[in-house]
């Protein structure tokens, strides 16, 4: 390693820190600091009417797993919390997979258009998302409800006699979430696929690879940074999702996001809301680290 290269590396480290500073400042003020506040709140006592009293208590954390039966005061396992967590994680996983299955072909399609057309297609993909979330969710509601678009069309053509109940089902929430998070999968994938060198594919086919083999062993590994980015952007926010499950799910089956929101609302247990969020954060961070490490293991590093 030449002297110049050594010096460059050290400078590179310093530059690295300098470059991340603006992001750290913005996040430090408006994301990390609030999180620390919440951590403190998770260790306080709930006030009578929401908010907290400045009295230390472990209850916020204990009540994640254990709860007292309200009438006979016996301590039992808060299995309902686990059910809610599990339901949310499962829903988020399925949403991510669905978004990937739909998003990858879409990103591939856009990236393989002639260069002049690509921006147009990207444009077309993102236009729906320039309307806001609540309105789009209501529009979905309009399409799937009992007298909505789909049911009316199906009944008019005689395919069904009674309207299909689509609203307020888990399927509706799934469809809604996949819809809402689709651009978050497509855009990173597109950015990665766009850089993919087609000659690699040609080489693979020249070596008698099947299409699926080429997909599995050439394309996917190389665009995996995009897959990782897209999956993170879909899975993680969908875990804490609150609006879409509420509007399309009917509020009967809570997701973890709704449940935490309840604690800050009528549930009047801010410490529990705070501790549940911390727990969610830990789970997600661990999952993220595993995922990123696994995804990077298979890639070739460039440069």
């Amino acid at each position: 390693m030449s002297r110049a290269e050594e010096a460059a590396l050290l400078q590179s480290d310093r530059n690295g820190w300098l470059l991340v500073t603006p992001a750290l400042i913005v996040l430090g003020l408006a994301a990390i600091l609030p999180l620390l506040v919440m951590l403190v709140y998770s260790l306080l006592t709930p006030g009578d009417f929401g908010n907290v009293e400045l009295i230390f208590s472990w209850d916020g954390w204990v009540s994640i797993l254990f709860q007292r039966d309200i009438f006979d005061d016996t301590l039992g396992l808060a299995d309902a919390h686990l059910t809610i967590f599990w339901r949310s994680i499962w829903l988020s996983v399925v949403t991510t997979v669905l978004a990937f299955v739909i998003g990858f072909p879409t990103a591939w399609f856009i990236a393989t258009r002639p260069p002049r057309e690509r921006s147009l297609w990207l444009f077309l993909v993102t236009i729906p998302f320039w309307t806001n979330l609540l309105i789009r969710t209501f529009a979905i509601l309009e399409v799937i409800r009992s007298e909505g678009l789909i049911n009316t069309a199906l009944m008019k053509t005689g395919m069904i006699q009674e309207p299909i109940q689509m609203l307020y089902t888990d399927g509706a929430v799934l469809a809604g979430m996949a819809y809402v998070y689709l651009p978050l999968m497509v855009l990173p994938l597109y950015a990665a696929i766009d850089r993919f060198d087609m000659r690699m594919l040609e080489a693979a086919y020249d070596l008698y690879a099947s299409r699926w083999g080429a997909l599995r062993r050439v394309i996917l590994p190389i665009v995996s940074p995009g897959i990782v980015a897209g999956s993170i952007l879909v899975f993680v926010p969908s875990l804490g999702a609150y609006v879409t499950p509420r509007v399309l799910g009917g509020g009967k089956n809570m997701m973890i996001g709704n449940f935490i929101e309840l604690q800050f609302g009528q549930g009047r247990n801010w410490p529990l809301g705070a501790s549940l969020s911390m727990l969610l954060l830990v789970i997600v961070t661990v999952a993220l680290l595993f995922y990123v490490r696994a995804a990077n293991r298979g890639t070739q590093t460039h440069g």
Partner: protein
Amino acid sequence: MADRFAVNRLPGFTTIAILAFLALYIPIVTLVFFSFNAGKTVMDFNGFSLQWYAVAWGNTTVQEAAWRSVVIAFWATLIATTAATMAALGTTRRRPFKGQTAVYVAINQPLMVPEIVTAVALLIVFAWVKVQTGYQGLGYLILAHAAFCVPFAYLPIRARLEGMDLSLETAAADLYATPWATFRRVTLPLMAPGIVAGAMLAFITSLDDVVITEFVKSAGQDTLPTYMLGQLRRGVTPEVNAISTVLLGLTVVILTAFFLLTRERR
């Protein structure tokens, strides 16, 4: 070769993509359609009418809310994308500096916590600042939005950077280009699709935000989503559809103009 097939065609992909595009647009078309509803609600089409556009025209609250959403989203996107681009440059394609994982987690932190938590916490923090300084402008909302937009901008930019080949930049350096010139004329243009993707995601995310805005907003600072949220309890009126259609139309016009202008340069 006799059986030359298109290298970049994968079976079924085009079909799925086209179906996806269609599915994406059905709710949008529905929403635009209902903005012309002669009936009274967002359900129940009753005939064609421009009444909701008239109502939206007269409803300054909704217009201000929509405009406010756009202003906040614009500034938040600007700040977030800049910060994210710099952060991406700082964390990829160099040897990992100490604490880089921590930085990575910090940058993505807003994604990992449900918005309600950040919202309540920001309420507490900002409320204290508001009482101390008496400042009540949009700054808090812009800062809050910029913060949660950073990871959305960061991840696509980083994905793009990671896939980039260093050889072009090395070539530029070999040709005696200064680091800044290399950056400006080689790296940045190569990163452009990632930056654009990141900026678009950030903008969309900011426009959509409901929970954090609801808690951080001060008097008279409703955005379009919080305005709608307030209506959820008592029935949503189609003037929101009308406003959204107008916004959508404006966006299409602006982006088309942008698109056409940048095409000339090629």
